[in-house]
């Protein structure tokens, strides 16, 4: 009888480990190489509203990548907005503040006035409400 319980416990443990791994995988997920390349080349950039924008007119491939990511971003913002009792725009904007801050030198970002700047070692030009 006790052996039975032990066996079940072991099974549960293994199941738990597998589940943890499955949950942990997306956390470690990294950018798609095409997306990373478009960012690095300055064809696309971060906008203050929390979404990606086209700096130059996009190729169909780049357009597909950006649209896909922006849809996923909107879904994530919507979920987090509900959790934090805020609006999607508010959460997206706050994320935009952070995403522009996290651009690395060479990448593009949009200033509050709408122009595209190339990030350098200095602080990016952001909205005055950004933390």
């Amino acid at each position: 009888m006790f052996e039975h319980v032990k066996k079940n416990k072991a099974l549960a443990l293994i199941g738990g480990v597998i589940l943890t791994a499955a949950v942990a995988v997306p956390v470690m997920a990294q950018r798609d190489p095409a997306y990373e390349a478009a960012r690095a080349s300055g064809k696309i950039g971060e906008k203050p509203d929390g979404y990606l924008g086209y700096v130059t007119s996009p190729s169909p491939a780049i357009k597909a990548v950006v649209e896909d990511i922006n849809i996923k971003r909107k879904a994530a913002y919507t979920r987090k907005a509900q959790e934090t009792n805020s609006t999607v725009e508010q959460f997206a904007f706050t994320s935009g503040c952070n995403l522009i801050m996290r651009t690395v030198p060479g990448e593009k970002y949009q200033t509050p006035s709408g122009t595209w700047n190339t990030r350098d070692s200095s602080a990016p030009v952001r909205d005055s409400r950004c933390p």
Partner: protein
Amino acid sequence: MMNNPFSRGKAMMMYQTSQLTDRRYDAIRRRMRSLATAGLIFGALTGLSACVQVSAPDKPIVINLNINIKQEVVYRLDGDAKDLINKEADIF
């Protein structure tokens, strides 16, 4: 009845009468007063309608969406935003 300044004939009569009597200035004064009253009513009405019009265009505040985002909200959400960006690094 005789003093009704809005009636033309009577007004004429009054005017003529006043020409002959001392009531001349009285009649002019009455006319002026009625004109002033009409002016006041007109002014009050236009003033009132102007007040109503002032309160009407309150709506288009929505034009600038960013106005809805206040700095305090951004500060409150900052931690959660950072958390999301770290957790779903593939889309950021």
